[in-house]
């Protein structure tokens, strides 16, 4: 759905990373972890296109002025360019136009499996809402978070507060183990698990290969350049596993994803 929202808060968590809370219609409360939203940073034509962000959290809050619970949606974002820079300048009370929820979310899997979340950098964002849903189902959840340095590792205490066991790896060793998060992950993989991963493509490729080698089912959440977010422009496609020029099999990240089973995709 498309709706006008209001910024409730927009807080800098670490250099370049912000967490923004916005008002949302009640219906958004049923959004699935892994779904995303698209927002128009400005009413002007620069930047022109909407920007996509995963749902970091959806919940309700009590306002001071009345008793009824109000729905909010949160995103966790990194400032990387013009749009996110403008976003970071928004304040409480500013209006913003949203499309949400978009895309297909994570399927939570079967009860009793150990749930393994793997996040690279800002890829951590959609995993928090997922962790909440899994914990609410009574699942055991472990999080593997990776980044270049300690500033890239966000909201770990929030995950821990949910009861999630966390493992951290950074390229420079400023937080957790030094190295790739996938190296840490590999030591903990085994039967009876299910993986949910979000992050840069090389990381997702490594995770999906590892998952296959260990026979662990794995879902990945992808990013792509998007224009429409609703499956109309065909700008955001990824080749499916059996794609070739003769038998084209492109999947829309916005509509068929952003979450895919890792075996659905072609990993070059």
């Amino acid at each position: 759905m498309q709706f006008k929202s209001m910024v409730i808060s927009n807080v800098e968590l670490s250099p370049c990373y912000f967490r923004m809370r916005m008002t949302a219609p009640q219906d958004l409360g049923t959004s699935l972890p892994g779904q995303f939203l698209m927002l128009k940073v400005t009413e002007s034509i620069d930047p022109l296109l909407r920007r996509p962000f995963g749902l970091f959290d959806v919940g309700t809050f009590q306002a001071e002025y009345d008793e009824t619970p109000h729905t909010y949606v949160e995103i966790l974002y990194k400032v990387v360019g013009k749009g996110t820079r403008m976003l970071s300048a928004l304040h409480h009370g500013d209006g913003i136009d949203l499309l949400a929820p978009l895309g297909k979310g994570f399927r939570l899997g079967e009860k009793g499996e150990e749930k393994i979340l793997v996040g690279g950098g800002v890829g951590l964002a959609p995993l928090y809402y997922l962790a909440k849903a899994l914990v609410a189902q009574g699942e055991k959840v472990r999080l593997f978070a990776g980044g270049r340095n300690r500033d890239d590792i966000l909201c770990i205490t929030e995950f821990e507060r949910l009861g999630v066991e966390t493992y951290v790896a950074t390229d420079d060793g400023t937080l957790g183990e030094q190295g790739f998060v996938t190296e840490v992950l590999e030591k903990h993989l085994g039967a009876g698990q299910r993986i949910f991963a979000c992050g840069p493509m090389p990381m997702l490729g490594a995770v999906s290969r590892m998952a296959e080698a260990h026979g662990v089912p794995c879902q990945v959440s992808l990013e792509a350049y998007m224009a429409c977010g609703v499956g109309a422009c065909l700008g955001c496609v990824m080749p499916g596993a059996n794609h070739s020029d003769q038998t084209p099999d492109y999947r829309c990240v916005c509509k068929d994803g952003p979450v895919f089973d890792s075996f659905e995709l072609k990993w070059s």
Partner: protein
Amino acid sequence: MHKPDMSVEVAGIKMRNPVMTASGTFGYGAEFADYLDLESIGAMITKGLSLKPKAGNPTPRIVETPGGMLNAIGLQNVGIDAFIAEKLPYLKNVQTPVVVNLYGNTLEEYGEVASRLDGLPGVAGIEVNISCPNVKQGGIVFGTDPKAAQEVVRLVRKSTTKPMIVKLSPNVTDVVSMAIACAEAGADALSLINTLTGMAIDLDRRRPILANVTGGLSGPAIKPVALRMVWQVAKNVKLPIIGIGGIMNGRDALEFMLAGATAIQVGTASFLDPGAAQRIAREMEQYLTENGIESVSSLIGALNA
């Protein structure tokens, strides 16, 4: 004042208002049903259709540029069989004319797609995209050579009894001679403009941003070029014209009508605002009401110039 008359007719296609959705920016209609009332717009034009399914280009396929975007989708589409089986049944239930945009990789293919669509209920008309490379002739674009364009239009004319709109490419030195060539070959209406060929470069990586290197520019950035071309063609060709290019609101749309367009298409605007087509129709009507104009068709070509 009573409500202004918003209806227009293009090549025998009767529309409740002049707002059509541009090919490739509105999917097959269903994608937008959650965001607007499909029965509030004038007509829908579907994604460029070819005989066989088409894979399209590798990614990145789109990139934003100041006031616009470049796309090199590569005309990915489901092909005519899947279109008829999977997309058309839905569209038939919507009480809004559906115009099918089509193209061919060869001259013959244009004719085949057109004849397959001829006689199909639920297809109000066709729009022929001539901004495609002729695979058999070294990739020269049909729509940039008046002779090649004429061949395509003649062949499609023979292959269909449906109203035929020919969509012109702006990537030419003289759009008027292209328009005249297509009119002579039997077009019932002309739509313009398709995207302007452009390019974007990543300085630091020293690489083109699009996998296809070049792409088509659309959005507000191209509106002045589109207006100029519509105005030039309208002065020189008798056929009804459909104006396209960077239309974001009702005022933009009405400017195209003043320049000589009978109807307009909304493209990139639907990406920023999935309800854009309906909103633009409403804004046009509002303008007429506020200015005491009784019918939108009275504005066609009414520019004081």
